[in-house]
Structures are given as C-alpha cells and as structure tokens.
C-alpha cells in the first residue's frame, strides 16, 4: 500500500473525465503533487459502463467507446505522476480545504489541500423523485444502474422491458438490451419531443423496431412481488392524463431514464453556493466556486451531453487549481514563524511574510520571562546566525520591548526558516 501525504497541492474528488482532465492539467501547470480520490475500485467514472461508441469525436477526431476514451486519460495521468486513491469515499470537505476520507486501509483520515477540484459527476433521478404510483415490486431500476449491471457486472435485470424517458441513456440501454436478446416493448416520453440526440433515436430505437410514444408516461405499475405490467397513458400539455388513453403493457422490468442531478452534497458542506437552476455550484471563468481555492468541473457543475466538453472544463479547472495552489505554496514558504527564545515569553507577530521586508521595516513586540536589571541584548537570529539586535538598559516582564527588523536584513531573513528572539544579559 502506497503512502498518502498529509498535504497535496491539488486534491481532485472524482476520477471521471472531468477529474482526470483536471489532474492532468494541474500537473502540467506546475502543481507538485496531485491526488485523485474515487470511491470506485478503478478510475474512469461513469465512462467505464458506457461501452458504446460515440466518444471523443471532438477531442481525438475518433469514434471511441467510453472505456477507451477514459483509458487515454488514465494512462496520461498516471504517466505524469498523478496519485490515485481508489476505493475511498470522501466524507467531508471544509472551506479551509481539509478533505476527510474513509477507506479500508486508512480508516478515517484527513488530507489537506492547497486547492480542491470537485468532479463528483451526477446521479440519476429515481422513482421517489418522480412520484410513480402503484405497488413497489422488484423490477424498477434506473437506466444507469441497469447499464452497470449489463455492461460491467454481466447481469441481465429482466427480459421484457419498458423504458420511461427518451434521453440518451434510456435509448442506448434500449439498444443494448435488444442486442443482448431482451425485448424492449416501448419507450415512453412525457414531453411532446425526443429529449436525447436524434441519431440515438435512429440507431438505438429505429434499428431495433422499438416503438417510441411521445406525450406518454407510466400511470401505474402492476405486480406485487415482481413487475408484471405497466399502465401507460397519454398526457396533455400540462402532463394531465387524458381519459380513455390508458394501455396495459406486459413487461417484467421498468427502467427509468428521467434525468440526472449534479452530485453536490459534499460541495454544500464546504459552503459552496449552488445555482438552483443547474443544481451545480456557481463558478467563475476559472471554474472557481464562491469558496476560494475550491474549483468544480464536469457534470457536478451542470449536466453535459458531450464528454468532450467535460474534458475541456476539467482541463481549465485543473490549470486554475494549480495556479491557486502555487500561490498558496509560495506564501507558505514566505511565511516563517517568530519563536520566543531564551527568556522571552512571547513575540508578536507570531509569523511574518519575509517578502514584506522589501516594503519597509517590520516591528516586533515582546515580553521577557524574568526581569534583568542590567543592560540586556535583544537578539533576533535564524537559530544560528544573528539577523539583528539592540541593547536595552534593562528588561522587565511588565514592560513591552519593541524591536524592528530593517530592510537591510532582507537577505539574511530570506535565508531563514524561522526567527528566534532572545533576551540575554550583556
């Protein structure tokens, strides 16, 4: 098991096309270490189950299946030294960019990020969200769940199907199930028009003689233990059932392809503002959310129809995240602590930005621990070499001592990893 650092320049949540592109671009833009976290056992996101062709026409001018499109980015990311943390759930993120993860080998652990890219994709609307009446027998699934079973796990969820929704996932599944020998009785669409691509109507429904009915929906599910049939009905323009149009369609499985919702439970925990229309974060032109250092790309922002655009957004967000992380890292390097040394109780400020010395002197104030009723040297060193000093006639805990570091000490201070202040009798 490889070791995971406690801090990364860029942490990407989600290893779909958006997350992989973000990680690749962040590395190329100069991020030193990039970690991609995914709950799945393998990187690639939803593309791994989209085994059909049609991906990459814009990016590669090639007609690739989903897994091939994903693998090109996986190979590139790994080649660039992007680290993958798989089989790992992200439980929480904060506005200070702390990421809490959980997995079998680390238990629950925190990882700090100089910047974060949210790339969690989307999830499917379910039966509960569209309020389908009737019993709750087995045999009602979302199209994406069925897609994973059929294409990845090798399990057929039924033999006679009705599909609700004419989106691309529904139509692509209609073809896939037909190829595997199942009968797809009908595709029903509540809208008066097709909601997916026309080419999918031709190559997925027409080619396999699957009837599509527009302005139709499922009125009722019939069956107690297992779906036995559904009752379809025609609707008017306000989605009200038209009396006398119902039809019983025997089937053993109903697939729902009724839309996707960006997956933003985590984003909300970090205070990321969500647009109620897209369901995803508000982003600026660098794909930064309202929380500084937290970026977002892909289906987590809005539901895309072409993966090529997801990749493009991922690349842009990764570049922005790397730039942000570099700024934070440089400022971390510039910030050094001021340490209370011999006979000093405390020093204010507690740390300083070394570069500020270029703009003028920096004033320190301190109190000693025990009184010295004799001339006292107040010294600032980098631990070994003296940076500056002054002599006070005496030093008493009740009286604050002020000391300035002048711009003349600029070069000495740049070399220091910390500054130690001490008060010693001359």
């Amino acid at each position, binding site marked *: 098991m490889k070791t995971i650092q406690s801090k990364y320049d860029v942490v990407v949540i989600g290893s779909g096309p958006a997350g992989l592109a973000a990680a690749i671009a962040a590395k190329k833009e100069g991020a030193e270490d990039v970690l991609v976290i995914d709950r799945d*056992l*393998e990187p690639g996101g939803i593309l*791994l189950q989209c*085994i*059909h*062709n*049609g991906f990459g*026409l814009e990016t590669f001018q090639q*007609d690739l*299946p*989903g*897994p*091939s499109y*994903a*693998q090109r980015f996986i190979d590139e990311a790994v080649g660039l030294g992007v680290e993958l943390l798989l089989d790992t759930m992200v439980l929480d993120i904060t506005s200070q960019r702390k990421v809490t993860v959980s997995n079998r080998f680390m238990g629950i652990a925190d990882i700090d990020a100089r910047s974060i890219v949210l790339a969690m994709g989307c999830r499917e609307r379910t039966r509960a969200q569209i309020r389908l009446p009737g019993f709750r027998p087995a045999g009602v699934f979302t199209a994406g769940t069925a897609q994973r079973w059929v*294409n*990845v*796990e*090798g399990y057929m969820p039924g033999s006679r199907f009705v599909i609700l929704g004419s989106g691309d996932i529904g139509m692509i599944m209609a073809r896939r199930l037909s*190829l*595997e*020998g199942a009968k797809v009785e009908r595709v029903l669409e509540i809208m008066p028009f097709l909601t997916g*691509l*026309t*080419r999918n*109507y*031709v*190559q997925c429904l027409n*080619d396999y003689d699957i009837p599509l009915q527009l302005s139709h929906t499922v009125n009722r599910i019939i069956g107690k233990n297992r779906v036995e049939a559904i009752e379809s009905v025609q609707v008017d323009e306000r989605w009200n059932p038209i009396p006398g149009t119902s039809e019983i369609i025997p089937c053993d499985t109903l697939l729902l392809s009724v839309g996707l919702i960006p997956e933003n439970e985590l984003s909300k925990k970090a205070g990321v503002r969500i647009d109620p229309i897209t369901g995803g974060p508000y982003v600026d032109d660098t794909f930064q959310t309202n929380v500084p250092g937290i970026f977002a790309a892909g289906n987590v922002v809005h539901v895309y*129809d*072409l993966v090529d655009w997801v990749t493009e957004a991922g690349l842009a967000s990764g570049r922005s995240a790397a730039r942000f992380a570099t700024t934070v890292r440089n400022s971390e390097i510039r910030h050094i602590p001021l340490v209370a040394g011999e006979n000093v109780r405390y020093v204010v400020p507690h740390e300083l930005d070394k570069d500020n010395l270029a703009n003028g002197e920096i004033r320190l104030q301190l109190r000693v621990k025990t009184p010295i009723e004799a001339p006292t040297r107040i010294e600032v060193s980098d631990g070994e070499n003296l940076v500056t000093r002054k002599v006070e006639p005496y030093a008493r805990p009740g009286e604050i001592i002020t000391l300035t570091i002048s711009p003349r000490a600029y070069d000495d201070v740049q070399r220091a990893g910390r500054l130690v202040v001490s008060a010693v009798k001359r």
Partner: protein
Amino acid sequence: METEVQRMICITCPKGCTLEILRDGDVIVDVKAGCKRGKDYAHAELTDPRRMIASSVVIEGALHPLLPVYTSAPFPKPRIHELMQTLRAAKVQAPVKMGDVVLEDVLGTGINIIASRDMTRI
C-alpha cells in the same frame, strides 16, 4: 424522368443532420448533407447499411466478468444478430490491452473485434 427526394437522418456525428437524397429510381442523383461524411453515409445506408457495434465478451481472471469490445469498422447491419451470437460464445483470458484484437476477421467480414480497455490479471 421522375426524380424523388428521400430524407434520412445522418448518424455519423452528434449533429444529426437531415440528409436530402435525390433519387431517380435506384440511382442516387445527389445528396444534400452537412458535410462530406454525411454524403458517404447516405450512399452506404442505401446500398450496404452498417453500424458500429459495441458489446462485451466473457473474460476470465480479471476484476470484472466482462471485457468491453467494439468493431474495428462499421459492421453489416443484416448480420448483427449473428455477430452477437459469436460474441456470446467468445471467451478471453486476462490480461488484455486496449486495442488488442479479440476476434480476427469475424464471420469473414474482414472486421476485427477490438478490446475497448486494458484488463489486468488479478
């Protein structure tokens, strides 16, 4: 001579243009399309319709029981059913690399069946 116009949707890319095919009986006189590939599609669709087919074959020794595969070129539409039967009978062993030929010259069509991804042996 009577020419007639036939309309058809091009499925070559996501634009999904409507093609207008001017025919004189069986002879295609002209095709109005969004691009050259659309014209080619119309000719092919009327003489020898083909489709890209993506499916899976059984794999042993990998993380998943199925390996996703696809046809190296569009496959003759009337023989898709036969192709599926051939794929259902096929079985491969992990490891497999993306682009590996899983079945060569399938059903004598000159078309190969290609692995869509790597699958390591576990």
